[in-house]
């Protein structure tokens, strides 16, 4: 891109910005529910200023040169914030592509009589804008990945609560597939809680685990062994018929571990292990009357 085009574009900055803005606002892709027009105008103006400055620099042809660095920064910021705000990839890349359209229009007007120069200038402008559009897409994807990573870690934290069901009895309902990383989180959470509450029995409920393969079983056995080393006994409950079948077919040895079909029977077992007796209170008065429940 030569100095002349850069100067010409700079002279028409106001016009470019207006046309660009109207292109963007006209486009159905603009989400004014996610971003106000005033905000967009300010963002676009800032971007255009830096871009025209880069065009005027000595290395205008090279989109990786130092002159384009502030533009990459601004663009990355815009893409990442758009990714977080929930813009689609199409909406995000439309931002830079709509500017490309305006710039070609301006160049066309400027070099109406000299098509050779026009061709050359359009090509070089396209090259720069395409590279910028790649930056947009790349950072957009990066932003989305960050969101996904955050959600994954949140999910693994949320899905491993350790519940104190009785004095000395903990329950750990496991929901979702157990992999090595999650087992580590589950195991640590359980062992910490055993220390904190001084519980002697932990019930691992696996009714929410879709499938048990040899690896998952291995993880469960590890958790049970670690708890046992600390002086707490583990009961695995919630073993469904198909899981029992898989375990036996895979030849996994669970004979050293207490297993129960339901959480209720595991709780009952824990009561007898701790010598706790739970019985129905003697009824006095009407059945179902509120005083029975201590109201």
């Amino acid at each position, binding site marked *: 891109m030569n100095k002349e085009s850069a100067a010409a574009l700079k002279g028409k900055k106001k016009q470019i910005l207006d046309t660009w803005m109207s292109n963007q606002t006209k486009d159905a892709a603009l989400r004014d529910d996610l971003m106000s027009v005033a905000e967009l105008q300010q963002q676009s103006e800032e971007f255009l200023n830096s871009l025209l400055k880069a065009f005027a620099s000595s290395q205008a042809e090279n989109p990786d040169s130092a002159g384009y660095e502030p533009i990459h920064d601004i663009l990355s910021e815009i893409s990442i914030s758009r990714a977080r705000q929930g813009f689609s990839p199409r909406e995000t890349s439309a931002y830079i592509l709509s500017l490309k359209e305006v710039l070609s229009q301006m160049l066309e007007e400027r070099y109406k009589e000299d098509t050779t120069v026009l061709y050359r200038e359009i090509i070089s402008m396209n090259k720069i804008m395409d590279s910028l559009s790649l930056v947009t897409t790349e950072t957009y994807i990066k932003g989305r990945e960050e969101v996904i990573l955050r959600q994954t870690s949140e999910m693994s934290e949320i899905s491993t609560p350790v519940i104190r069901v009785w004095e000395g009895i903990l329950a750990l309902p496991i929901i979702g597939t157990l992999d090595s990383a999650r087992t580590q989180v589950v*195991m*640590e959470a359980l*062992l*910490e809680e*055993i*220390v904190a509450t*001084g*519980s*002697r029995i932990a019930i691992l409920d696996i009714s929410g685990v879709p499938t048990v393969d040899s690896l998952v079983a291995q993880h469960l056995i*590890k958790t049970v*062994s*670690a*708890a*046992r*080393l*600390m*002086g*707490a006994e583990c009961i695995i409950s919630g073993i469904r018929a198909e899981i029992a079948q898989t375990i036996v077919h895979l030849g996994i040895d669970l004979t050293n571990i207490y297993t129960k079909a339901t959480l209720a029977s595991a709780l009952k077992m824990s009561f007898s292990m701790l010598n706790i007796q739970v019985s129905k209170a003697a009824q006095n008065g009407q059945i179902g009357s509120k005083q029975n429940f201590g109201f």
Partner: protein
Amino acid sequence: MERIPILKMGPFLLVTIQVDLYDRLALTLENDLINMVSKTEAKGVLIDISAVSIVDSFMGRILGNIASMSKIMDAATVVVGMQPAVAITLVELGLTLAGVHTALDVEQGMELLRNKIGQIDTDEEGLYDSFI
């Protein structure tokens, strides 16, 4: 040389490890403890490792050894107060300390040992009764 004290409490021996065990110290402890078991005819050994934050496979093996040796000499071993990180490490090393009883704290460990003694007593009484 540094030594870990072994306290006698009735029919039990109490060992609290307050420092990180290095190999020589662990071997000395094993030796001292087994000699003490034979001297006092203890019925149970309680090892408190709540202050131990680092273990290796050697230390795991020593604990297992102490338990096996005590068992031969008719004393039960209870390891109490193991830290979560230590428990995870031992499991990852493949040492599940079979034959070692465990408890959360000294109190529960003592209770466990007392129950074991009670069992042995009644067993022996039963044995005696059958002789008569």
